[in-house]
C-alpha cells in the first residue's frame, strides 16, 4: 500500500459521489486519475468495452465477490483479498492465473483516499501474483446501501496441470498436505470487526498461493486435487473433497498447525480452528509416493514454508472425515452449520 500524505481529490471532490457512477465525465475522470494509472496495462490503455486476449488451449475461469467489514484489517484489506481470492481459485484448478476483471460497487460518500488505498493494494497484489487487471466496471449506490465498497473479480488462467486437478481424481491412500497454520484470516477479521482487544496482533494470512502450486505441477508431482481453505475452513475443504471423491478421510489433529494466539482466541470464543476462514492456505491431495518431494517443494515458498502432511483419504463412507484427537480419541469433522457465533460462557 502506498503512503498517502494528502487527501485524494477528483474534480475538487474528496468523496465518491453519485456522479462518479453516472458514466459521464466524472466517471471518466475517476477512472483516469485512480484506476488506470494503478492497474497500468495496454488493455486498459485501449479504453475499449472489453479486453481482447490471445489464448490457446485449456483455460480455467472463475469469479468471486468480496464483501468484508472492516475494509482494512491486520495483514490485509478488501483490495488484496479480491485479487488473491480469485488468483487462488484459478491456481486450485491447476491453472496459471493470467487476467482478471474487477467490478466495483462504491457507496456514495466513500473517501477517495480509502478508494485509492484499496486500488493501490489491488495493483500491488496483482503485480506480485503476476496477473493483469484488464477490464472492469464501476457503479455507485446511495449512502447506506453498501459497506463502503464491494468488489467482484473474475479471472482466467492457462491450465498447466497435465492431468485434471479435481476431487474426482482423489484415490484411496492419497495424502493430504496442508500449506501452513490455519485460522489467522478469520480471527484477524473478527477481532478487527468486533474490536476484540487482543494482546497479540493476529494478521490475516491473505496471500497468493499460485507459485507453490505451479511449482508442484511443474515438478511433475501427482497432484490429484487442490482446495483453498477460505470460508468454512479446512473442515469444509476436506468434507467437500471427500464427498465428491466418494471416499472417507482421516486426519491427525496434533499435526495441524494453529498459532498459539489464534488457538487461544478460538478457545475463548468456542470456535473450532478447522472451521475458521483462511485466505492464503490450501490443501493439496497428492499420491503417497510424492509426499516427501511435494513437501520439499512447498517448503521452498514463503507462503507454504510450514507445509505438513495431516492425513489421508481412504475407503469408507463418502464424505466422512474423522480426526484423531490430541488424546487419542476420534471424532467426526463436519462442515460448519450456519454462521460462526461466539458462545455464552
Amino acid at each position, binding site marked *: 500500500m502506498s503512503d498517502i500524505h494528502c487527501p485524494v481529490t477528483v474534480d475538487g471532490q474528496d468523496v465518491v459521489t453519485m456522479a462518479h457512477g453516472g458514466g459521464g465525465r466524472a466517471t471518466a475522470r475517476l477512472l483516469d486519475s485512480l484506476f488506470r494509472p494503478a492497474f497500468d496495462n495496454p488493455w486498459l490503455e485501449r479504453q475499449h468495452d472489453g479486453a481482447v486476449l490471445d489464448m490457446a488451449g485449456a483455460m480455467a475461469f472463475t469469479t468471486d465477490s468480496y464483501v468484508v467489514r472492516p475494509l482494512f484489517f491486520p495483514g490485509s484489506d478488501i483490495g488484496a483479498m479480491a485479487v488473491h481470492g480469485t488468483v487462488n481459485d484459478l491456481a486450485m484448478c491447476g491453472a496459471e492465473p493470467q487476467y482478471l476483471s474487477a467490478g466495483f460497487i462504491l457507496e456514495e460518500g466513500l473517501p477517495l483516499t480509502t478508494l485509492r488505498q484499496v486500488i493501490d493494494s489491488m495493483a500491488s497484489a496483482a503485480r506480485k501474483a503476476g496477473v493483469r487487471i484488464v477490464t472492469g466496471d464501476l457503479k455507485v449506490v446511495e449512502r447506506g446501501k453498501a459497506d463502503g465498497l464491494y468488489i467482484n473479480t473474475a479471472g482466467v488462467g492457462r491450465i498447466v496441470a497435465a492431468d485434471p486437478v479435481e476431487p474426482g481424481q482423489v484415490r484411496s491412500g492419497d495424502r493430504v498436505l496442508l500449506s501452513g497454520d490455519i485460522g489467522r484470516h478469520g480471527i484477524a477479521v473478527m477481532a478487527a470487526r468486533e474490536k476484540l482487544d487482543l494482546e497479540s496482533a493476529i494478521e490475516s494470512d491473505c496471500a497468493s498461493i499460485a507459485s507453490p502450486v505451479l511449482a508442484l505441477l511443474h515438478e511433475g508431482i501427482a497432484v490429484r486435487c487442490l482446495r483453498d481453505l477460505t470460508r468454512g475452513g479446512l473442515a469444509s475443504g476436506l468434507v467437500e473433497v471427500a464427498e465428491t471423491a466418494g471416499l472417507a478421510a482421516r486426519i491427525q489433529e496434533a499435526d495441524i498447525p494453529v498459532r498459539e494466539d489464534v488457538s487461544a482466541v478460538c478457545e475463548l470464543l468456542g470456535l473450532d480452528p478447522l472451521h475458521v476462514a483462511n485466505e492464503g492456505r490450501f490443501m493439496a491431495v497428492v499420491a503417497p509416493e510424492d509426499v516427501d518431494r511435494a513437501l520439499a517443494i512447498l517448503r521452498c515458498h514463503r507462503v507454504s514454508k510450514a507445509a505438513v502432511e495431516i492425513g489421508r483419504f481412504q475407503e469408507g463412507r463418502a464424505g466422512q472425515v474423522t480426526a484423531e484427537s490430541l488424546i487419542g480419541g476420534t471424532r467426526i469433522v463436519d462442515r460448519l*452449520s450456519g454462521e460462526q*457465533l461466539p458462545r455464552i460462557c
Partner: protein
Amino acid sequence: MKYRDEYRTPEAARAYAEAITRITTRPWTLMEVCGGQTNAIVRFGIDQLLPEEITLIHGPGCPVCVTPIDYIDKALEIAATPGVVLCTFGDMLRVPGTQSDLAAARARGADVRVVYSPLEALAVAREHPDCEVVFFAVGFETTAPANAMAVYQAEREGLVNFSVLVSQVLVPPAIRALLERPGNRIQGFLAAGHVCTVTGYGEYEPIADQYRVPIVVTGFEPLDILEGVYRCISQLEQGEHRVENQYSRAVRRPGNQLAQQVMETVFQVVPRQWRGMGGIPESGLGLSPEYRTFDAEARFGEVSDREEVVGECASGAVLRGEIRPDQCPAFGTRCTPEQPLGVTMVSEEGACAAYYRYRRHAGGPSDE
C-alpha cells in the same frame, strides 16, 4: 499454550484411563453437568478411553438449551418493537422460538446485535439515548456477575434506556431436581468448574450428604475430566460421598466473593421454568426490588409462564440425562443443526449438537 496443552497430553490421558480401569469393579453412572464438559468429552473422545462399566450422561448445563421458549418469544417480541436495540450473546441467535428466531428477526429488520459482554450493551445504550436497549441476560452463575454488573452500572449512571430480560439459572437446585426424579440413575456428578469459580462449592456439600452422591468440581480439559471421573469413581468404589475439588487451579471453596456480592445486590433467587425440566423452585435469579426498573419485563410486559408443549423433540429427556442424543429417533434425520427440532441441536454447548458434530458413525441412525 500454557494451562491448556499440559492438560491434553495423550500419555497422561492413557495413564488416567488405565488408572480408572484398575479401580472400577462394577457399573457406575456419572453425569457431567456442564455443556462445555459434554463438548470436550465428545470432541476429544474421552468416553472412548473409559472402561465400559462407566456411563457418562450429559447434564442440563447448556444455558441456551434450558431457556424456556417463552423467553425467546418475549425477546422476539421486544426486538420487533420500533426503537428497540436487542443485544444478546451470539449463541441465542439461532434458538427457535414458537414462530421464528432472533437471526431471522434481524434479517427482517429488527436491530439485534451480538455482544461479547453485557457491558458492551451498556455502551450501546450510552451511544443511543433515543433507543431502548435491552440485553438478553441468559446463563448460569458464570454469566450472572457480569450481567449483574451491567445493571449495577446502569443504575449508577442513571441510564434510563437500558433494561435486561433475565433468564438466569442456578446449578445446585437443578442437581437436586435431577436426584429427586423417580428412577434417577445418576450416582455421581462432575460439577461445572467455571460455575464454581464464582460460587465456590460449599453449596454442594449438603447435596452430597443428603443424597449420598460424590460431587467432583471438574475443569474442562481432557485431563481435568479424566481426573474428575477418577476421583468420582474412587469415592463410589469406596462407598464415599464427598465434594472434591479437581479444578483447584481456578476454584476455591468460598468462590469469588466480589462476584457473589454484585450478584446478591442486583439479583434475588426466584423460581424458574427450565426447558426440558419444568419448574424448579429457587432455581433462578431475577432482579431484586431495588433494580426492578431495569427489568425488561416491567417495560415490555411479563413473560408468560406456560407449560411446555412437548412435540417430537426429546430434548427434555436428553437434558435430564435419560437418553443419549443418538438414541432419539429424530437424531440426524428429522433433526439436524440446520433443521433443529430442539435447542440441544442448536447450541454450541448442546449435547445433540455435539453428538451431531463429532459422533455420526458409519451405519448409525445418524446418516444424512
